[in-house]
């Protein structure tokens, strides 16, 4: 097994650390899971059971909301699938970035990879391209439970819970990404990649389907070829 500098830290400690860091987000994720459940169950686009199964298997909020809203709006099934997979295409570079630390045989790697979502990945990032697997898995389990649990509550009758945006929860996600980004900006290369990545995403947003801007932003990392 490849060893990293953190291998002296007990895995249990890192799992707990990831889980605890993810807790406040789990509240937000759970509430958004509820709104996904409500949207799916009430707008006639999807139905209760498919919504819960989708949360458990796809486990990616933006893609699921995109698919549900396309179906609710009477869109083509192929459009819903394409939008969701396009939004999730960012997990290809993200998966590559954590490939080295998600150890084990192919099945273990496959299962661990399913716990990768933006938030668990970001929590696991230590800067310089290093990731702590325990933190990713601990955070991933907590977020999966709150996402699926929230969806179940939502499809059963979450309308009473109100709109999560009224609680400002939609601002919680960029805030988390920003806090984690701030800890990554150790050198000029990282700052340049961040500025370029954000610029690409903003410029492309009006012209491409949702999901494409984030995938395209990963091209900013190519500046790593320049000065090393």
């Amino acid at each position, binding site marked *: 097994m490849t060893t990293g500098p953190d291998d002296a830290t007990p895995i249990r400690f890192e799992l707990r650390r990831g889980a605890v*860091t993810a807790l406040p*987000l789990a509240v937000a994720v759970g509430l958004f899971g509820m709104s996904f459940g409500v949207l799916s169950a009430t707008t006639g686009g999807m139905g209760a059971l498919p919504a819960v199964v989708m949360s458990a298997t*796809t486990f990616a909020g933006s893609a699921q909301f995109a698919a549900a809203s396309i179906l609710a709006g009477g869109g083509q099934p192929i459009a819903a699938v394409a939008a969701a997979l396009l939004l999730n295409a960012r997990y290809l570079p993200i998966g590559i970035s954590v*490939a080295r630390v998600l150890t084990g045989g192919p099945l273990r790697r496959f299962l661990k990879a399913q716990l990768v979502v933006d938030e668990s990945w970001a929590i696991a990032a230590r800067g310089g391209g290093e990731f702590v697997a325990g933190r990713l898995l601990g955070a991933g389990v907590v977020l999966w439970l709150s996402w699926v649990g929230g969806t179940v509550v939502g499809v059963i009758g979450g309308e009473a819970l109100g709109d999560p945006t009224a609680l400002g929860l*939609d601002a*919680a996600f960029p805030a988390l990404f*920003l806090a984690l980004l701030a800890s*990554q900006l150790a050198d000029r*290369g990282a700052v340049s990649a961040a500025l370029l990545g954000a610029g690409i995403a903003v410029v492309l947003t009006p012209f491409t389907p949702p999901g494409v801007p*984030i995938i395209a932003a990963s091209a900013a990392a190519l500046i790593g070829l320049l000065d090393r």
Partner: protein
Amino acid sequence: MSGIWGIVAAIGLGTMAIKAAGPVLLGSRPLPRRVKSVVALLAPALLAALVATATLGEGQSLVVDARVIGVGAAVAAIAVRAPTLAVVVVAAAAAALARLAGIG
């Protein structure tokens, strides 16, 4: 109703495959130096893109709403070295207050 299960399966299996491709196919193989220096910059590039789209994006439009106030509060919290949890809570509270005040 059978159509919906096809959609759920396609999105679910497709997403699982995308997430697992790197970890399963690459494994623990050490990456070449040049690839490594690109991978090292994936996190800042993608995180910054997520910040931008989660703050300003709404479908295919860019909008300035209460989220911007929330993220502004997050910047302030990060500047005073608040823990991540506090940054997230401050941002949500600021955005909620802004909406309560009728902004965005």
